[in-house]
Protein backbone atom coordinates (compact mmCIF):
# COMPACT_ATOMS: atom_id res chain seq x y z
CA UNK A 1 0.00 0.00 0.00
CA UNK A 2 1.53 3.26 -1.10
CA UNK A 3 1.41 6.46 0.92
CA UNK A 4 -1.35 7.96 -1.19
CA UNK A 5 -3.42 4.81 -0.64
CA UNK A 6 -2.84 5.27 3.07
CA UNK A 7 -4.29 8.79 2.94
CA UNK A 8 -7.25 7.55 0.96
CA UNK A 9 -7.79 4.72 3.45
CA UNK A 10 -7.81 7.36 6.18
CA UNK A 11 -10.42 9.30 4.17
CA UNK A 12 -12.56 6.17 4.31
CA UNK A 13 -12.98 6.57 8.08
CA UNK A 14 -15.02 9.82 8.06
CA UNK A 15 -16.77 8.59 4.93
CA UNK A 16 -17.99 5.41 6.60
CA UNK A 17 -19.02 7.40 9.65
CA UNK A 18 -21.43 9.28 7.40
CA UNK A 19 -23.58 6.14 7.04
CA UNK A 20 -24.99 6.10 10.58
CA UNK A 21 -25.28 9.88 10.45
CA UNK A 22 -27.53 9.56 7.39
CA UNK A 23 -29.68 7.11 9.35
CA UNK A 24 -30.05 9.60 12.20
CA UNK A 25 -30.86 12.45 9.85
CA UNK A 26 -33.49 10.42 8.05
CA UNK A 27 -35.10 8.81 11.09
CA UNK A 28 -33.98 10.57 14.26
CA UNK A 29 -35.83 13.19 16.29
CA UNK A 30 -35.44 16.88 15.38
CA UNK A 31 -32.49 17.42 17.67
CA UNK A 32 -30.56 14.48 16.28
CA UNK A 33 -31.17 15.65 12.77
CA UNK A 34 -29.52 18.97 13.43
CA UNK A 35 -26.60 17.34 15.21
CA UNK A 36 -26.32 15.06 12.21
CA UNK A 37 -26.33 17.95 9.77
CA UNK A 38 -23.59 19.56 11.82
CA UNK A 39 -21.55 16.38 11.91
CA UNK A 40 -21.92 15.78 8.17
CA UNK A 41 -20.13 18.95 7.13
CA UNK A 42 -17.36 18.31 9.63
CA UNK A 43 -16.80 14.72 8.48
CA UNK A 44 -17.07 15.69 4.83
CA UNK A 45 -14.47 18.42 5.36
CA UNK A 46 -12.05 15.93 6.93
CA UNK A 47 -12.65 13.36 4.18
CA UNK A 48 -12.02 16.01 1.53
CA UNK A 49 -8.78 17.16 3.16
CA UNK A 50 -7.49 13.58 3.35
CA UNK A 51 -8.60 12.85 -0.21
CA UNK A 52 -6.79 15.95 -1.50
CA UNK A 53 -3.58 14.62 0.01
CA UNK A 54 -4.32 11.07 -1.18
CA UNK A 55 -4.82 12.17 -4.78
CA UNK A 56 -1.72 14.34 -4.54
CA UNK A 57 -3.71 17.40 -5.65
CA UNK A 58 -3.36 20.37 -3.29
CA UNK A 59 -5.93 22.28 -5.36
CA UNK A 60 -8.66 19.91 -4.12
CA UNK A 61 -8.23 21.59 -0.73
CA UNK A 62 -10.42 24.39 -2.10
CA UNK A 63 -13.41 22.09 -1.83
CA UNK A 64 -12.67 21.45 1.85
CA UNK A 65 -12.23 25.21 2.33
CA UNK A 66 -15.69 25.87 0.94
CA UNK A 67 -17.14 23.12 3.15
CA UNK A 68 -15.53 24.66 6.21
CA UNK A 69 -17.08 28.04 5.39
CA UNK A 70 -20.53 26.95 4.22
CA UNK A 71 -21.08 23.95 6.49
CA UNK A 72 -21.66 25.93 9.71
CA UNK A 73 -23.71 28.44 7.69
CA UNK A 74 -26.05 25.67 6.64
CA UNK A 75 -26.31 24.39 10.20
CA UNK A 76 -27.10 27.86 11.55
CA UNK A 77 -29.76 28.35 8.89
CA UNK A 78 -31.43 25.12 9.96
CA UNK A 79 -31.09 26.14 13.58
CA UNK A 80 -32.88 29.37 12.77
CA UNK A 81 -35.78 27.61 11.10
CA UNK A 82 -36.09 24.64 13.42
CA UNK A 83 -35.70 26.88 16.45
CA UNK A 84 -33.14 24.64 18.04
CA UNK A 85 -29.38 24.42 18.17
CA UNK A 86 -28.67 21.45 20.39
CA UNK A 87 -25.41 21.15 22.24
CA UNK A 88 -23.64 18.03 21.23
CA UNK A 89 -20.57 16.61 22.85
CA UNK A 90 -20.27 14.23 19.94
CA UNK A 91 -19.77 17.02 17.42
CA UNK A 92 -17.59 19.05 19.74
CA UNK A 93 -15.19 16.23 20.51
CA UNK A 94 -15.18 14.90 16.98
CA UNK A 95 -14.03 18.37 15.96
CA UNK A 96 -11.55 18.85 18.80
CA UNK A 97 -9.94 15.43 18.31
CA UNK A 98 -10.66 14.60 14.69
CA UNK A 99 -9.54 17.87 13.11
CA UNK A 100 -6.08 18.03 14.75
CA UNK A 101 -5.63 14.29 14.19
CA UNK A 102 -6.26 14.92 10.51
CA UNK A 103 -4.70 18.31 9.91
CA UNK A 104 -1.44 17.86 11.83
CA UNK A 105 -0.30 14.75 9.90
CA UNK A 106 -1.32 16.52 6.71
CA UNK A 107 0.80 19.52 7.71
CA UNK A 108 3.75 17.23 8.38
CA UNK A 109 3.24 15.64 4.97
CA UNK A 110 3.01 18.95 3.08
CA UNK A 111 5.85 20.65 4.91
CA UNK A 112 6.03 24.33 5.80
CA UNK A 113 4.72 26.81 3.29
CA UNK A 114 1.53 28.45 2.14
CA UNK A 115 -0.12 25.07 1.54
CA UNK A 116 0.36 24.27 5.20
CA UNK A 117 -1.06 27.62 6.29
CA UNK A 118 -4.09 26.90 4.12
CA UNK A 119 -4.56 23.52 5.79
CA UNK A 120 -4.34 25.15 9.21
CA UNK A 121 -6.89 27.76 8.13
CA UNK A 122 -9.31 25.08 6.99
CA UNK A 123 -8.73 23.15 10.22
CA UNK A 124 -9.31 26.24 12.35
CA UNK A 125 -12.51 27.03 10.46
CA UNK A 126 -13.77 23.47 10.88
CA UNK A 127 -13.09 23.51 14.62
CA UNK A 128 -14.56 26.99 15.10
CA UNK A 129 -17.64 26.16 13.07
CA UNK A 130 -18.30 22.91 14.89
CA UNK A 131 -17.66 24.28 18.37
CA UNK A 132 -19.82 27.35 17.86
CA UNK A 133 -22.70 25.31 16.50
CA UNK A 134 -22.50 22.56 19.08
CA UNK A 135 -21.48 24.10 22.39
CA UNK A 136 -23.95 24.38 25.23
CA UNK A 137 -26.30 27.29 25.11
CA UNK A 138 -25.97 27.96 21.40
CA UNK A 139 -29.51 29.10 20.82
CA UNK A 140 -29.97 29.73 17.14
CA UNK A 141 -32.36 32.60 17.61
CA UNK A 142 -36.07 32.23 17.59
CA UNK A 143 -37.51 34.21 14.75
CA UNK A 144 -36.43 36.05 11.70
Amino acid at each position, binding site marked *: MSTSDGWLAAALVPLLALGPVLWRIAHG*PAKDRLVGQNLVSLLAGLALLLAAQGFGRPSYTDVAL*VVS*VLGPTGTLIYARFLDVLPDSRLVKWTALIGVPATVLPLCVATGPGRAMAKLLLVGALLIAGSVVTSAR*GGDGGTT*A
Partner: protein
Amino acid sequence: MSFRFRLWVFLVGAAGFAVLFAVACFGLPAFGSGHHPYGVRAVRASLNHHTANVIASVNFDLRAFDTLGEETILFAAVLGAVVLLRQTQDERRKTPEPAVVHPRVRRFALLTLPLALLVGLYVIAHGQISPGGGFQGGVVTATALHLLYVASDYRALERVRPLTVYEIGEAAGEAAYVVTGFAAVLAGSAFLANVLPFGTLATLSSGGTVPLLNAAIGLEVASGVVVLLARFLDQAVEIEEPGEDEESGDPREIEKPRESQGPGKPRESEEPRGCGRPKESEGPEASGASRDDDNRDDKRE
Protein backbone atom coordinates in the same frame (compact mmCIF):
# COMPACT_ATOMS: atom_id res chain seq x y z
CA MET B 1 -56.37 10.12 -12.74
CA SER B 2 -56.63 8.39 -9.41
CA PHE B 3 -53.64 7.92 -7.18
CA ARG B 4 -53.73 4.15 -7.59
CA PHE B 5 -53.92 4.33 -11.37
CA ARG B 6 -51.05 6.81 -11.45
CA LEU B 7 -48.95 4.50 -9.34
CA TRP B 8 -49.63 1.63 -11.69
CA VAL B 9 -48.67 3.70 -14.71
CA PHE B 10 -45.47 4.63 -12.91
CA LEU B 11 -44.70 1.03 -11.93
CA VAL B 12 -45.13 -0.24 -15.47
CA GLY B 13 -43.07 2.61 -16.85
CA ALA B 14 -40.40 2.21 -14.19
CA ALA B 15 -40.13 -1.51 -14.80
CA GLY B 16 -39.72 -0.88 -18.51
CA PHE B 17 -37.17 1.86 -17.88
CA ALA B 18 -35.26 -0.28 -15.37
CA VAL B 19 -34.95 -3.19 -17.82
CA LEU B 20 -33.91 -1.03 -20.75
CA PHE B 21 -31.54 1.06 -18.65
CA ALA B 22 -29.87 -2.03 -17.18
CA VAL B 23 -29.40 -3.47 -20.65
CA ALA B 24 -27.95 -0.13 -21.78
CA CYS B 25 -25.60 -0.03 -18.79
CA PHE B 26 -24.11 -3.38 -19.72
CA GLY B 27 -23.71 -2.09 -23.24
CA LEU B 28 -21.81 1.02 -22.14
CA PRO B 29 -18.03 1.01 -22.03
CA ALA B 30 -17.00 -0.25 -18.59
CA PHE B 31 -16.74 2.37 -15.82
CA GLY B 32 -13.28 3.93 -15.91
CA SER B 33 -12.33 2.83 -19.41
CA GLY B 34 -9.98 5.03 -21.32
CA HIS B 35 -11.51 6.11 -24.61
CA HIS B 36 -12.54 9.79 -24.48
CA PRO B 37 -12.00 11.41 -27.88
CA TYR B 38 -13.73 14.69 -26.97
CA GLY B 39 -11.98 14.91 -23.63
CA VAL B 40 -8.57 14.51 -25.23
CA ARG B 41 -9.32 17.22 -27.79
CA ALA B 42 -10.71 19.54 -25.13
CA VAL B 43 -7.57 19.14 -23.06
CA ARG B 44 -5.39 19.90 -26.07
CA ALA B 45 -7.44 22.95 -27.02
CA SER B 46 -7.35 24.22 -23.46
CA LEU B 47 -3.59 23.89 -23.16
CA ASN B 48 -3.23 25.67 -26.51
CA HIS B 49 -5.07 28.58 -24.92
CA HIS B 50 -2.93 28.36 -21.75
CA THR B 51 -5.92 27.64 -19.54
CA ALA B 52 -4.92 25.36 -16.68
CA ASN B 53 -8.48 24.45 -15.71
CA VAL B 54 -9.81 22.58 -18.72
CA ILE B 55 -13.37 22.66 -17.37
CA ALA B 56 -13.31 26.45 -17.30
CA SER B 57 -11.87 26.40 -20.80
CA VAL B 58 -14.68 24.14 -22.04
CA ASN B 59 -17.31 26.33 -20.43
CA PHE B 60 -15.98 29.77 -21.27
CA ASP B 61 -13.92 29.20 -24.39
CA LEU B 62 -14.89 26.13 -26.40
CA ARG B 63 -18.56 26.22 -25.44
CA ALA B 64 -18.81 29.89 -24.47
CA PHE B 65 -21.91 30.37 -26.61
CA ASP B 66 -23.57 27.43 -24.89
CA THR B 67 -22.79 28.95 -21.52
CA LEU B 68 -24.46 32.15 -22.68
CA GLY B 69 -27.55 30.02 -23.14
CA GLU B 70 -27.19 28.55 -19.64
CA GLU B 71 -26.71 32.01 -18.25
CA THR B 72 -29.85 33.17 -19.98
CA ILE B 73 -31.82 30.29 -18.45
CA LEU B 74 -30.52 31.40 -15.07
CA PHE B 75 -31.44 35.01 -15.79
CA ALA B 76 -34.91 34.02 -16.94
CA ALA B 77 -35.46 31.73 -13.96
CA VAL B 78 -34.53 34.49 -11.52
CA LEU B 79 -36.71 36.95 -13.41
CA GLY B 80 -39.62 34.52 -13.35
CA ALA B 81 -39.25 33.90 -9.63
CA VAL B 82 -39.07 37.65 -8.98
CA VAL B 83 -42.26 38.23 -10.95
CA LEU B 84 -44.06 35.39 -9.19
CA LEU B 85 -42.96 36.49 -5.75
CA ARG B 86 -43.57 40.22 -6.07
CA GLN B 87 -45.74 41.94 -3.54
CA THR B 88 -49.30 42.19 -4.79
CA GLN B 89 -51.67 45.03 -3.98
CA ASP B 90 -53.65 43.18 -1.35
CA GLU B 91 -50.54 42.22 0.56
CA ARG B 92 -48.94 44.35 3.17
CA ARG B 93 -45.53 44.41 4.63
CA LYS B 94 -44.82 44.08 8.29
CA THR B 95 -41.60 44.64 10.10
CA PRO B 96 -40.15 41.34 11.12
CA GLU B 97 -39.47 40.78 14.78
CA PRO B 98 -35.88 41.08 15.84
CA ALA B 99 -34.39 37.68 16.41
CA VAL B 100 -32.69 36.47 19.54
CA VAL B 101 -29.27 35.18 18.64
CA HIS B 102 -26.71 33.85 21.01
CA PRO B 103 -23.71 36.23 21.15
CA ARG B 104 -21.32 33.42 20.31
CA VAL B 105 -23.23 32.56 17.16
CA ARG B 106 -23.38 36.25 16.27
CA ARG B 107 -19.65 36.76 16.72
CA PHE B 108 -18.91 33.65 14.70
CA ALA B 109 -21.19 34.71 11.87
CA LEU B 110 -19.76 38.24 11.82
CA LEU B 111 -16.21 36.90 11.68
CA THR B 112 -17.01 34.33 9.01
CA LEU B 113 -18.91 36.82 6.87
CA PRO B 114 -15.89 38.60 5.33
CA LEU B 115 -13.98 35.35 5.19
CA ALA B 116 -16.75 33.63 3.26
CA LEU B 117 -16.97 36.58 0.90
CA LEU B 118 -13.21 36.42 0.36
CA VAL B 119 -13.37 32.69 -0.34
CA GLY B 120 -16.18 33.31 -2.83
CA LEU B 121 -14.17 35.99 -4.63
CA TYR B 122 -11.11 33.71 -4.56
CA VAL B 123 -13.11 30.91 -6.16
CA ILE B 124 -14.40 33.28 -8.87
CA ALA B 125 -11.02 34.86 -9.58
CA HIS B 126 -9.15 31.54 -9.86
CA GLY B 127 -11.66 29.79 -12.07
CA GLN B 128 -9.15 29.41 -14.88
CA ILE B 129 -6.39 28.05 -12.64
CA SER B 130 -7.82 25.92 -9.88
CA PRO B 131 -11.19 24.24 -9.37
CA GLY B 132 -13.87 26.90 -9.20
CA GLY B 133 -15.21 29.68 -11.34
CA GLY B 134 -18.06 32.09 -11.65
CA PHE B 135 -20.88 29.64 -11.08
CA GLN B 136 -19.51 28.16 -7.86
CA GLY B 137 -17.91 31.33 -6.51
CA GLY B 138 -21.04 33.33 -7.25
CA VAL B 139 -23.15 31.05 -5.09
CA VAL B 140 -20.57 31.10 -2.28
CA THR B 141 -20.46 34.91 -2.38
CA ALA B 142 -24.23 35.14 -2.24
CA THR B 143 -24.37 32.67 0.64
CA ALA B 144 -21.73 34.68 2.49
CA LEU B 145 -24.03 37.68 2.53
CA HIS B 146 -26.75 35.64 4.18
CA LEU B 147 -24.50 34.93 7.14
CA LEU B 148 -25.74 38.32 8.26
CA TYR B 149 -29.25 36.89 8.41
CA VAL B 150 -27.86 34.15 10.64
CA ALA B 151 -25.90 36.64 12.72
CA SER B 152 -28.90 38.76 13.43
CA ASP B 153 -32.14 38.98 11.52
CA TYR B 154 -33.62 39.96 8.23
CA ARG B 155 -33.53 43.68 8.95
CA ALA B 156 -29.78 43.61 9.45
CA LEU B 157 -29.41 41.85 6.13
CA GLU B 158 -31.60 44.42 4.43
CA ARG B 159 -29.45 47.24 5.75
CA VAL B 160 -26.37 46.07 3.83
CA ARG B 161 -28.25 44.72 0.88
CA PRO B 162 -29.60 47.43 -1.40
CA LEU B 163 -31.63 45.11 -3.59
CA THR B 164 -31.65 47.43 -6.60
CA VAL B 165 -27.87 47.20 -6.78
CA TYR B 166 -28.08 43.44 -7.02
CA GLU B 167 -30.84 43.59 -9.60
CA ILE B 168 -28.63 45.86 -11.69
CA GLY B 169 -25.66 43.60 -10.95
CA GLU B 170 -27.47 40.62 -12.36
CA ALA B 171 -28.32 42.41 -15.56
CA ALA B 172 -24.79 43.82 -15.75
CA GLY B 173 -23.33 40.33 -15.46
CA GLU B 174 -25.43 39.10 -18.35
CA ALA B 175 -24.62 42.23 -20.35
CA ALA B 176 -20.90 41.96 -19.66
CA TYR B 177 -20.91 38.44 -21.05
CA VAL B 178 -22.58 39.54 -24.27
CA VAL B 179 -20.36 42.63 -24.55
CA THR B 180 -17.26 40.48 -24.21
CA GLY B 181 -18.66 38.37 -27.01
CA PHE B 182 -19.21 41.36 -29.25
CA ALA B 183 -15.78 42.74 -28.42
CA ALA B 184 -14.41 39.64 -30.09
CA VAL B 185 -16.53 40.43 -33.16
CA LEU B 186 -15.14 43.98 -33.22
CA ALA B 187 -11.65 42.55 -32.97
CA GLY B 188 -12.36 40.79 -36.25
CA SER B 189 -13.12 37.34 -34.97
CA ALA B 190 -16.22 35.27 -34.19
CA PHE B 191 -18.74 35.99 -31.42
CA LEU B 192 -17.25 34.99 -28.04
CA ALA B 193 -14.00 33.87 -29.65
CA ASN B 194 -10.99 34.03 -27.35
CA VAL B 195 -9.14 37.02 -28.76
CA LEU B 196 -7.11 38.27 -25.81
CA PRO B 197 -3.47 37.25 -25.31
CA PHE B 198 -3.36 33.93 -23.54
CA GLY B 199 -0.67 34.73 -20.95
CA THR B 200 1.33 32.10 -19.11
CA LEU B 201 -0.29 28.90 -17.90
CA ALA B 202 -1.55 28.88 -14.32
CA THR B 203 -1.33 32.61 -13.64
CA LEU B 204 -4.24 34.92 -12.95
CA SER B 205 -3.99 36.58 -16.36
CA SER B 206 -3.91 33.35 -18.33
CA GLY B 207 -6.68 32.08 -20.55
CA GLY B 208 -7.55 35.23 -22.53
CA THR B 209 -11.25 36.01 -22.12
CA VAL B 210 -11.87 33.10 -19.72
CA PRO B 211 -11.25 35.11 -16.52
CA LEU B 212 -13.40 37.99 -17.84
CA LEU B 213 -16.31 35.73 -18.67
CA ASN B 214 -15.81 34.02 -15.33
CA ALA B 215 -16.10 37.34 -13.54
CA ALA B 216 -19.22 38.23 -15.54
CA ILE B 217 -20.84 34.92 -14.61
CA GLY B 218 -19.73 35.37 -11.02
CA LEU B 219 -21.42 38.78 -10.86
CA GLU B 220 -24.56 37.45 -12.45
CA VAL B 221 -24.84 34.31 -10.31
CA ALA B 222 -24.04 36.11 -7.05
CA SER B 223 -26.54 38.91 -7.74
CA GLY B 224 -29.11 36.48 -9.07
CA VAL B 225 -28.98 34.26 -6.00
CA VAL B 226 -29.11 37.28 -3.68
CA VAL B 227 -32.17 38.64 -5.49
CA LEU B 228 -33.80 35.22 -5.48
CA LEU B 229 -33.24 34.64 -1.78
CA ALA B 230 -34.34 38.21 -1.06
CA ARG B 231 -37.69 37.54 -2.71
CA PHE B 232 -38.15 34.31 -0.80
CA LEU B 233 -37.15 36.01 2.46
CA ASP B 234 -39.55 38.86 1.72
CA GLN B 235 -42.35 36.39 1.22
CA ALA B 236 -41.54 34.27 4.23
CA VAL B 237 -40.65 37.01 6.69
CA GLU B 238 -42.20 40.31 5.68
CA ILE B 239 -45.05 40.09 3.23
CA GLU B 240 -48.44 39.22 4.60
CA GLU B 241 -51.39 38.05 2.65
CA PRO B 242 -54.85 39.27 3.48
CA GLY B 243 -56.36 36.83 5.89
CA GLU B 244 -52.99 36.10 7.35
CA ASP B 245 -52.78 37.33 10.92
CA GLU B 246 -55.67 39.72 10.48
CA GLU B 247 -56.42 39.58 14.17
CA SER B 248 -53.44 41.65 15.13
CA GLY B 249 -52.18 44.91 13.78
CA ASP B 250 -49.17 45.30 15.97
CA PRO B 251 -46.21 43.62 14.37
CA ARG B 252 -44.78 42.65 17.69
CA GLU B 253 -47.74 40.55 18.57
CA ILE B 254 -47.57 38.45 15.51
CA GLU B 255 -46.51 35.00 16.45
CA LYS B 256 -47.12 33.20 13.22
CA PRO B 257 -43.75 33.57 11.49
CA ARG B 258 -42.20 31.24 13.98
CA GLU B 259 -44.50 28.55 12.77
CA SER B 260 -41.82 26.64 10.97
CA GLN B 261 -42.19 23.35 12.75
CA GLY B 262 -43.25 20.22 11.01
CA PRO B 263 -46.53 18.95 12.28
CA GLY B 264 -46.51 16.29 14.91
CA LYS B 265 -42.91 16.54 15.91
CA PRO B 266 -42.05 16.16 19.55
CA ARG B 267 -41.76 19.67 20.88
CA GLU B 268 -40.13 18.88 24.17
CA SER B 269 -36.93 17.66 22.59
CA GLU B 270 -36.41 20.83 20.62
CA GLU B 271 -36.74 23.39 23.31
CA PRO B 272 -34.05 25.97 22.74
CA ARG B 273 -31.28 25.92 25.29
CA GLY B 274 -32.40 29.23 26.50
CA CYS B 275 -29.42 31.40 26.93
CA GLY B 276 -30.48 34.11 24.56
CA ARG B 277 -32.69 36.75 26.07
CA PRO B 278 -35.18 38.86 24.20
CA LYS B 279 -33.46 41.94 23.07
CA GLU B 280 -33.91 45.18 24.93
CA SER B 281 -35.27 46.38 21.67
CA GLU B 282 -36.25 49.91 20.94
CA GLY B 283 -39.18 48.39 19.11
CA PRO B 284 -39.11 47.20 15.56
CA GLU B 285 -40.66 50.40 14.26
CA ALA B 286 -38.00 52.75 15.54
CA SER B 287 -35.45 51.98 12.91
CA GLY B 288 -37.63 49.90 10.69
CA ALA B 289 -40.30 52.31 9.59
CA SER B 290 -38.47 54.70 7.33
CA ARG B 291 -36.40 52.01 5.73
CA ASP B 292 -39.50 50.02 5.23
CA ASP B 293 -41.03 52.79 3.18
CA ASP B 294 -38.31 53.29 0.66
CA ASN B 295 -37.97 49.58 0.41
CA ARG B 296 -41.58 49.33 -0.49
CA ASP B 297 -41.09 51.60 -3.46
CA ASP B 298 -38.61 49.43 -5.19
CA LYS B 299 -40.74 46.38 -4.61
CA ARG B 300 -43.62 47.89 -6.47
CA GLU B 301 -42.01 48.85 -9.73
